C-alpha cells in the first residue's frame, strides 16, 4: 500500500451507540466492491468480583501514544490483508455495563480476509494501545481492569 493515511481520531467520549454503528454500516453501501464486513464490539460486562458487581468502566488513555499505536496498527493491517476499509472507535470516560466501548469494523471484497484481519486488529489493540479501564462497582469503590 503506497497510499498515505492520516491518523484518524479513534476516541469517542462515552459509550458507542448502536445508531452510530448503523450509520457506519450504511455509509459502506456505496462501496460496491465490498463483499464482506466483519465487526467486533466490546461490551462492558457486569462482572461479579468478590461479591461486588461492576456497574461501569471509566476509560483513560495516554492519548498521544494511543493515537500513534492505532495508526501503526491500521497501517500494518492494510499491508497484511486485502481490505477495502477499516474503522476503529474506542470509548474514553464512563461506559455503563451493557454499553459498547470498542467498535472495530473491517471490510473486504472477500470474507476470508475479514476474519483474519479483524482478530488481528483486536488483539493488537489489546496488546499495544495504552488504554486503562477502571471498573466501578455499585458501591462506588473501584479496581483497575486487567485484560485476560
Amino acid at each position, binding site marked *: 500500500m503506497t497510499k498515505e493515511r492520516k491518523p484518524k481520531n479513534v476516541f469517542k467520549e462515552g459509550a458507542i451507540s448502536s445508531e452510530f454503528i448503523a450509520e457506519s454500516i450504511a455509509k459502506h453501501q456505496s462501496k460496491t466492491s465490498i463483499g464482506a464486513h466483519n465487526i467486533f464490539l*466490546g461490551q462492558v460486562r457486569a462482572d461479579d468480583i468478590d461479591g461486588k458487581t461492576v456497574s461501569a468502566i471509566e476509560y*483513560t488513555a*495516554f492519548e498521544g*501514544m494511543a493515537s500513534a499505536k492505532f495508526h501503526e496498527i491500521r497501517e500494518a493491517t492494510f499491508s497484511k490483508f486485502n481490505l477495502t476499509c477499516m474503522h476503529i472507535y474506542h470509548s474514553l470516560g464512563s461506559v455503563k455495563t451493557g454499553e459498547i466501548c470498542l467498535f472495530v469494523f473491517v471490510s473486504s471484497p472477500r470474507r476470508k480476509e475479514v476474519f483474519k484481519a479483524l482478530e488481528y486488529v483486536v488483539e493488537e*489493540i489489546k496488546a499495544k494501545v495504552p488504554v486503562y479501564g477502571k471498573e466501578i462497582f455499585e458501591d462506588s469503590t473501584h479496581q*483497575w*481492569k486487567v*485484560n485476560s
Partner: protein
Amino acid sequence: MQLQIKYFGLLAEITHCDEETIEFSKSQVSELLEELYLKYPSLKQKDFKVAQNHEIVSTDSNITNPEIALLPPFSGG
C-alpha cells in the same frame, strides 16, 4: 534537565498525580526509576513499563525526550 513524568491507571493513584515535572541530572531510564522509587516506594511493587517518544523502552535506554510515561498493563477494549 527537566522531565515531565506522566502516570497512568493505578500508578496515578500511588503518586496522587497524573503528571509532574522533576529535575533530573543523570542519563538512563533505570536511574530515573531509582529516583522515583525513593519518592514513591510502593511504585517498586507495581508492574509497569516506561514509554519515551510513544514507544516502550528498556530500563537501560538513555533518556532522550523530556516526556516520560509510566504505563501499567493495558486494559483497553
